[in-house]
């Protein structure tokens, strides 16, 4: 637990929070999308496992323009 206490939460917490929101919005959008550029299941893993860049990449390249 020492490691947990040594972290400066004022610094890290906002970052985790932002990353979380980004991920949630990407996943909601992904779930609603009927079709994506490229296989849909692949984008799921990209959004979940690639930190920060994953959701952004999905918004930039994965969404089909309707």
């Amino acid at each position, binding site marked *: 637990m020492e490691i947990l206490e040594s972290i400066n939460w004022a610094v890290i917490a906002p970052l985790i929070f932002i990353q979380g929101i980004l991920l949630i919005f990407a996943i909601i959008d992904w779930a609603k999308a009927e079709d994506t550029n490229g296989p849909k299941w692949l984008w799921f893993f990209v959004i979940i496992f690639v930190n*920060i860049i994953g959701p952004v990449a999905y918004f930039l390249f994965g969404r089909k323009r309707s």
Partner: protein
Amino acid sequence: MTLFKKEMVENWRNKKWVWVPLVFILLAVMDPISNYYMADILGAVGGLPDGAVFEMPDFTPPEVVMMSLGQLSSLGVLIIVLISMGTISGEIKNGVSELILVKPISYTNYITAKWTALMLLSWGALIIGMLGSWYYINILYGEISIADFLSTVFFYGLWLTFIVSLSIFFNTISKTPGLVAFLTILTIMVMSALTKVFQHLLEWSPNNLSSYIMQMLIEGNIPSNLTGTALTTVGLSILLLIFSIVIFRKREIAN
């Protein structure tokens, strides 16, 4: 106005209003944090010989502001270019613009509505991102006054304004979104090369905005060059916008 509202609704529906500001926060905040913890990170990664001592430079708040702006200048600009590349060219391609333009809407309205919506988005993202950076600078490095912060955001926003206008301009020229992005980035690169080569002639080139902002933060007052550069940037943006409208009108009438 209705067109502008349609743009805003669309930008909200495709979540641009959510993710672009968030990404700008992350970009603006990344460098201040990682530089602050650089000594710890190096220590944790290891691989340094025993007894190696690193003198990490202590950054002053203005230097850290410049780091944030540096990130926004590279990746932030890239994101703005990527989200704006299809805004008109994409609509021309899939025929949406024709549907809109059969209604009694002037070409001027169409272009300015697009431009305003993009401007709001990038200024909003910039302000939110820099607020994040400001928060961290105040905890980790030291104070930056509100006045300094606001003027930094304002002058840097002019650079983004220029990028948006440039992208809109190429949007009216090309039908392919990818080509729009490529041309925009190419232009920015050529401009920055020209600015470096003809340093003495092009003192007011928009590419110099960041360095004058740095000067302003260090000296504490607005250098006259910054005012000049700001005016040039605004002027160029307006010119680009007018050109876009003219070109767009010609092209649509020709069709």
